[in-house]
């Protein structure tokens, strides 16, 4: 059941290009087609290997021709954008995400050679609210459906994917809902946020973060492409970090901002193009979101590393982390030495 011709959408971005590169390195696959509207940046193009780049817009019916001509049997859909900055505005982003998916799925439905569809989705579809259970299972019903931005797009994309699954039951369908990505190379709103010199947080809240290492994400998508794992899977690391804990592990100071001023700070950050904050991320920064990954580990084995380990790989590059760790360690050592000296100089104090 190995796929022969694989088509990867969103190949000009970090995860897409890396996955295409990994698949291209697998000799069991005949062809790997990479689709995107813009050519990959040179440093990403290097990892693509023998991937054939097709400059096409998935919003255009042309994509159907590509699929039909190349006799594509496996499609990996990774072209759901998380940030408006990537797309050049929220309208364009919504169009790429929702209309793009519709067109792509319509093309897939028509293709007789189609055998497998892998879709990259997000746990953001569960929303973030104080009334949610501590961990979301794949069949959890969210208390507050996301109403804006990326998460809403993802909800709609999943709706179309489910529709596709009903109309083409012969196609193996894998839906991977990823938590926030982290890693030394990937660039996402959360990595930018945690790399800020002073990290603004919402006063009085400390969300739990669950993170997925970029390499693990690639591995899950690779195995979903090569093997048959039909179903919906939450993908992320086991365990959580509190936001405050993550900031401390980065060696950064946190700046608690009162709730009413949060949107102002978010706008400032967006204005400087440092971090692209959207409204639903504010709820995330208040209540967090953790998904139950036991189904993933049952089906794929222990394929993701724990959140803390994934974060450590990201934080390893932070100099402030090392400085704070060294300083606090030596301060502790100094305190202990002072204590010890006090005991040796005044032995009477011990007996007293």
């Amino acid at each position, binding site marked *: 059941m190995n796929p022969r011709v694989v088509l990867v959408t969103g190949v000009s971005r970090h995860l897409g290009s890396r996955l295409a590169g990994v698949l291209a390195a697998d000799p069991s696959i005949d062809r790997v087609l990479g689709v995107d509207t813009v050519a990959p940046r040179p440093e990403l193009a290097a990892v693509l290997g023998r991937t054939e780049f097709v400059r096409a817009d998935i919003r255009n019916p042309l994509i159907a021709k590509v699929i039909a001509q190349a006799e594509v049997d496996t499609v990996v859909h990774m072209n759901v954008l998380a940030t408006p900055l990537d797309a050049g505005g929220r309208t364009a982003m919504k169009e790429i995400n929702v209309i793009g998916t519709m067109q792509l799925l319509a093309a897939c439905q028509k293709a007789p050679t189609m055998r497998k569809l892998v879709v990259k989705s997000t746990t953001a579809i569960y929303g973030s609210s*104080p*009334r*949610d*259970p*501590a*961990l979301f*299972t794949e069949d*959890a019903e969210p208390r507050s459906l996301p109403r804006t931005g990326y998460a809403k797009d993802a909800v709609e994309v999943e709706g179309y994917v489910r529709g596709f699954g009903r109309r083409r039951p012969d196609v193996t369908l894998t839906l991977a809902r990823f938590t926030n990505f982290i890693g030394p190379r990937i660039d996402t709103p959360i990595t930018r946020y945690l790399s800020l010199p002073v990290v603004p947080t*919402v*006063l*009085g*809240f*400390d969300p*739990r973060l669950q993170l997925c290492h970029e390499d693990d994400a690639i591995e899950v998508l690779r195995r979903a492409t090569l093997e048959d794992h039909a179903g919906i899977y939450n993908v992320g690391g086991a*365990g*959580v*970090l*509190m936001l*405050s*804990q*993550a*900031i*401390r*592990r980065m*060696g950064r100071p946190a700046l608690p901002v009162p*709730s009413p001023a949060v949107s102002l700070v978010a706008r400032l950050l967006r204005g400087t193009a440092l971090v692209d904050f959207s409204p639903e991320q504010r709820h995330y920064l208040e*209540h967090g979101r*953790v998904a139950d990954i036991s189904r993933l580990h049952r089906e794929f084995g222990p394929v993701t590393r724990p959140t*803390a380990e994934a974060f450590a790989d990201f934080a390893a590059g932070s100099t402030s982390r090392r400085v*704070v*760790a060294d300083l*606090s*360690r030596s*301060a*502790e050592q100094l*305190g*202990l030495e002072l*204590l*010890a000296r006090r*005991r*040796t100089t005044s*032995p009477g*104090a*011990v*007996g*007293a």
Partner: protein
Amino acid sequence: MPEAKILQLEPRESRRAQPEPAPDLTPEAAPGADWEQRLAHGLAFLRRRITGDYAIDDFGFDPDLAEHVLLPPLRPLYERWFRVETRGLDHVPDTGGALIVANHSGTVPLDAMMTTLALKDHHPAHRHLRLLGANLVFTLPVVAPLARKAGHTLACNPDAERLLTGGDLVGVFPEGFKGIGKPYRERYKLQRFGRGGFVSAALRAGVPIIPCSIVGAEEIYPIIGNAATLARLLGLPYVPVTPTFPLLGPLGVVPLPSKWIIEFGEPIETSHFGGAAAAEDPMLVFNLTDQVRETIQSTLYTLLMQRRSVFF
């Protein structure tokens, strides 16, 4: 004195290895070395906090913080102020999941904290009670993250079952706000026990239900009135008026020093009912709910009879 150095460094190393250190019940070192050892512990604790070098579980429970910051200020209240007496601690298993169901009272959930301390300090296995809290708790700033760090989570069936099947000791107050915010004249009269959600969670997990009766908490802040309009304005279930609050201002926040008794009753086994199928049987769930409620109510009356006075 080379020995002194070893004494100070040892706990630091061992603490880092295990996420949940046992409480320091054995200060076996020389009496003078005690505070120095504590200072060394304090330094290690500070370093862990500053560098984020501690482990939390999926629910956000932070044993390191609970042990060293959240619980210690409650101990004087437990030992000196309320002089809590525990009974039937042997009914609480040393390992494995169990659901502790208790009556709720006292305007402020001090009864929850005292029950936590009773099990943490006085149970032979030093078990940490994971409480199920109302929605409101997780909506409020400051309170919400503190509740998570203290090991509590939202009162909903998925969370309760996850904790119980994971072998945790879970505590629940099915009366909720109806119990904790009831007027003083209705003291020790159990309110409605929710919809029996706690029973179905225990049935699904197949763990015993342990009825727990708390006497003394009703008298700490006797509610004689409720500022309903203000409560609605603030989005709170009630704003209590007690003999001392708000009359005496901040002084009204001091609870009355009533004498407390916490009794853990005979466990009600649920494993033989047949798990998830039994949880779908509303009649069984109602009957068990009633049984638990009756047990707590009758134990409350017995304890009240035995009590010499409210304060001694």
